[in-house]
């Protein structure tokens, strides 16, 4: 929907990491997760909400999240997600990978070749 394709691809790869990172702070339902990602990135990461729910369900199937229905104070029930110890372990691994990856990308992109023949 007019979204930058490069950003969209990056988002797809980062979605699991972002979802787990947001849910580390406490139980939330899908809309809240999307809002938190959007707000904390100042709108830079506007998750495709269509890919958010498959990610949440996949993480639940993998045991990284548990979900429970709960009636809202107003309006219909919502499905709340909570991170599990297994999810925290996975998040730690993703953080490590992500740091190494971004560090490497940064290194390649910023390093200028030494002038030769001086």
């Amino acid at each position: 929907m007019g979204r930058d394709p490069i950003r969209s691809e990056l988002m797809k790869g980062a979605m699991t990491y972002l979802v787990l990172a947001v849910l580390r702070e406490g139980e939330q339902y899908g809309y809240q997760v999307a809002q938190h990602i959007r707000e904390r990135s100042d709108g830079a990461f506007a998750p495709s909400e269509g890919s958010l729910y498959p990610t949440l369900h996949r993480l639940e199937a993998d045991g990284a999240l548990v979900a429970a229905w709960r009636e809202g104070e107003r309006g219909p029930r919502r499905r709340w997600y909570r991170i599990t110890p297994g999810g925290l372990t996975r998040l730690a691994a993703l953080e490590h990978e992500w740091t190494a990856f971004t560090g490497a990308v940064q290194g390649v992109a910023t390093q200028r070749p030494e002038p030769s023949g001086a």
Partner: protein
Amino acid sequence: MPEPQDRDAYLARVAASLDLVGPDAQDVLDELSGHLDDTTEGLRAQGLSDGDAERRALSRLGDPALLGRELSRTTWTRRRLLAAAGGGIRGALIEGVRVWLVLALAALAVSVPVMLVLGQVLPMLGRTETSHAGGPALSALGVAGVMAGFGWVGHALPIWVARSASVTVRAVRRPVAVIGLVASSLFLWLVPWLDLDPVFAAGLPLAPVIFAVTAWQAPQTPGFTLMSRATVALAAAGVSLYAVAILVSAPVAGGDDWYADLSTLGQTPDTVGLADDAISPTWNTPYENGYASAWVDPVPWELALKGAVTSLEFETWPVAIEGGVMHFGPEPLVVAEVPAHEAGTSWLIPQRKDPVQTTRLLVGITPDGSRVLLGEDLQLTPTPVWNGTLAAWWFGG
């Protein structure tokens, strides 16, 4: 397909692409509906009109068919896989037993009157009424029954699996078809030891293919019921074809009168100075567990034969009766020597893929190698039915 403009149409498109059914599917739709509520409300708070807010909220969720398919990929949790496997095993057992029972009952219901009619019609046509009730016609009927059974199980099994896992039949019918084809083929080819003839050996491997075809096209609910007129009609058609085959192939009455010329198989006892009843054989027929056996009297036979014959053997010959004459094959199927001082022996009759009728001779061998016919049992006895696995039939071993 154009983007749906309202929430109900959008959720219907998601539901159409979901593999889930029942409460599980409703949970997914409720979750998306709640998300749309929240998003719409948030956008309205930013100043959008009701219509624009809902359209923007739907747009953010993206293509509903794609969303349904993506959500379906997360359907197969370990618990659901186990439920599907359990439903598959249970369904295969229950439907397998049901279909064989129903087919057997239906076949019995129509075969009794058909056989009674045949019993009256065949003698009127001058044909024997019993001898061709088996053979290829019966094998073809059996193969048709097996194929019908596999076809029914293929039709019903995806529904069992889908219900156990709370998913659509569409989501499971292809895996069920492929897994069933491979598993039932492996089983049929390698496990059961079957009495086989060429019709069974050629037809049986097709049954898993019939299973796969019907499973691949299984509907969301059964297309027809097992206990139905269609089943009885199917059985009636099968038994009727069988009856026609018997009518066509039944031999003309009086075919049991034949003549056997044994003169080419050995000389008579008097040519070596023995009486016709110098030795009396006793034959054990039909064959038991593939073995023939026979005895001689008196014992020891060497004394009775006075040295005119130095060895004694039971020979089993393949024969065919054509034009009222018994024709012997080029050589005996089995030659079993009677040990010295022994009363008799038993010998294995080989299984053949093309069964033949056999008769038995007692032959004495003189010191100069001549053959003397000392006795015969000309009762026609077929070679044992070929028994083994399908793999052994087609590939040996």
